[in-house]
């Protein structure tokens, strides 16, 4: 009798543990889907997007719907995967879409301006702070498929909480 009791107890404990695991798993799945398909927070830092984003680091929200349906265009702030290191993300502004003619100059390399045509399926991205930004002026246009999300909201710091103007 004691043995049967023991088994029953063990069984209920196991069932409870299983239920908890299932709930945790579901929650993690839900987190993954919202993070990848709706919006996700990103911490951005560095001087390349001054004065739009601060030097010390902002927490921004990027939504993933617009890139998926092709609704990003000129002037949008986007989070892209770096073409040089796939484990890094960059936050830059789209300056030219495919087929556009982009004229730019790099103050670190002299005053000469250059003009390029953005090839098919690519976008031209640049930081707002042209003096301290590593962007398409160095590595050229990037494939559209690298765009991860479009920045639309700033969460931190609190005094600039609100929509990010395009």
């Amino acid at each position, binding site marked *: 009798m004691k043995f049967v009791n023991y088994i029953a107890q063990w069984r209920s404990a196991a069932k409870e543990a299983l239920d908890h695991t299932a709930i945790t*798993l*579901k929650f*993690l*799945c*839900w987190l*993954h*889907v919202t993070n*990848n398909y709706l919006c996700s927070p990103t911490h951005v830092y560095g001087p390349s997007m001054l004065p739009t984003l601060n030097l010390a680091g902002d927490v921004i929200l990027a939504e993933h719907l617009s890139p998926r349906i092709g609704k990003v265009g000129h002037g949008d702030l986007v989070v892209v*995967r*770096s*073409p*040089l*290191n*796939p*484990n890094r993300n960059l936050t830059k502004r789209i300056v030219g879409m495919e087929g556009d003619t982009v004229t730019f100059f790099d103050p670190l390399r002299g005053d000469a301006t250059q003009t390029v045509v953005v090839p*098919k*399926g*690519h976008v031209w991205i640049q930081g707002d702070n042209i003096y301290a930004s590593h962007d398409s002026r160095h*590595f050229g246009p*990037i*494939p*559209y*498929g*690298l*765009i991860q999300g479009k920045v639309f909201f700033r969460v931190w710091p609190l005094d600039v909480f609100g929509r990010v103007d395009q």
Partner: protein
Amino acid sequence: MGTRNFLWNFTKKFVTFGLITVTVSDRYVTVVPVRGGSMSPTFNPKTSPSTGTFSDDYVLVEKFCLNKYKFSHGDVVVFRSPLNHKETHIKRIVALPGEWFGNRQNNDVLKIPEGHCWVEGDNAASSMDSKSFGPVVLGLIRGRVTHVVWPPHRIGAVKSTPPEGLSSL
């Protein structure tokens, strides 16, 4: 009341199932069909030479390699086309970042830039690959093909070594 309860339960199960499927296929493993003959004979070998039709193979794609983006020569990878982000291609990696790569067709030697790789189809005659659009950014890669899972008579692992006659190896 009974039907409503049933419907509610059904929806809940359905959504949960969907969430789990999407998560697993995004993060761990997924199955995709191979269209076209650019990777023949590894995938889609011609069923009958007279008609020239391809039967679609279904392949298992693992995504664990995306944590570190470490690939080796001869890996078959799925990547988004650099020309059109809505298309995905399946090709074989021929050269990795930072390597010197000699193209046997026009005797060019070029250095693969950092964060890029050179991909080619096994069927050199009809393949849209790095020979037409240049090196591919590693960030576009969506996974590595490990097995053929359908049709049944072709089930088996995909070898990492390319068949004879690929332009560079």
